[in-house]
């Protein structure tokens, strides 16, 4: 099962990124689950310093920024099975 994790608390960009991920998966009929991680300790464990953080199948893709939708589609398609 492919797993996309969005790390971040309540910030606006964090919510947006989570929504974008779900959108991309639905629009492209991809088989992946999206999980939102809000626990600060869990966020710190990943080593990122700013939210939102985006992790696809265990690989940290970015932190502190909102990718454009086309970039996000690439990232997801390239990193899931």
């Amino acid at each position, binding site marked *: 099962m492919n797993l996309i994790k969005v790390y971040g608390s309540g910030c606006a960009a964090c919510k947006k990124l989570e929504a974008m991920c779900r959108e991309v998966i639905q629009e492209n009929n991809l088989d992946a689950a999206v999980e939102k991680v809000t626990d*600060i300790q869990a966020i*710190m*464990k990943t*080593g*990122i*310093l*700013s939210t939102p953080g985006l992790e696809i199948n265990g690989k*940290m893709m970015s*932190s502190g920024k909102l990718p454009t939708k086309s970039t996000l589609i690439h990232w997801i398609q390239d990193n899931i099975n």
Partner: protein
Amino acid sequence: MKNKFLVLSAFLLVWLLLYLNLNPITDIIVYSIFGLEKNTHLTNAIWFFIFEVPKVLMLLVLVVFGVGIIRSYFSPERTRKLLGGKSLFAGNVLASSLGVVTPFCSCSAIPLFLGFVQSGVPLGVTFSFLIAAPMINEVALVLLFGLFGWQTALLYASTGLLIAITAGYVIGRLKLEKFVESWVYETKANRIEFVEEKIPFNDRIDAGISAVKEIVAKVWLYIVIGIAVGAGIHGYVPENFMASLMGKSAWWSVPLSVLIGIPMYSNAAGIIPIVQALLEKGASLGTVLAFMMSVIGLSLPETIILKKVLKIQLIGIFVGVVGVGIIIVGYLFNYIFA
């Protein structure tokens, strides 16, 4: 690729032509198209509005674009790497400067604080970063530059840096690590290294454009309202309305402004209308800058967020040290611009 540079150059040229000719263009609109009578209160107010709104917005677009490109070279992870193992004073200077150019949102204050401290960046150096990052930002500088001139903007930036460096240094010297919640030092954060991809300059231009979209969309309304307020009071409220309350002669005005400013929370764009109204009506520059710095630099929501990782004593010292720094700057300006 080539196309993008052409578009960019064309844009810059048009920008420059417009910016340099705002004065005659405003004259044409106000006197020829609207046909308003010269030198009445109302005409002056309308002229001020029509001149200032495009001027400030144009400056904002250009600066935010430039800063967006500069920021694409920095990230908090990279800044942390640069700050690791730096000695106290040099670390404070570096952290404050990096605070200005590293992309930062106060909603990320906690992960950033934890990530810095847990990977060995000294507490005082971390504070220098946390003070400089919100206080010296491009929107504040553009507005000060556009409305009050480059001297004011430069003074604001340099004294803001000075406060961040000194306050962080003082906090570092006081050895306050015991007032950080104990679990912070018990967890070791993983360090993450993003692959340093070579980003083509083309993509950095995109980063600049998206910064413009994001920030200008957020603040333009405040700015228009601020200038409208400024234009409205331009000719109507008595000139020295605020002088007795916030003028130079009232010695208590500086600490009082800071006390009022700390619990207030606003971004730079939101506070400028107030700043403009106060200055226009006889409040002195030092007092007003002190007010602005305390509103932007010290905010109640941020300190409440920090309560998760810091004991109340350390928060008190942090607010106290920065507050005293701001008060000193306020007096200094009132003295210099006597």
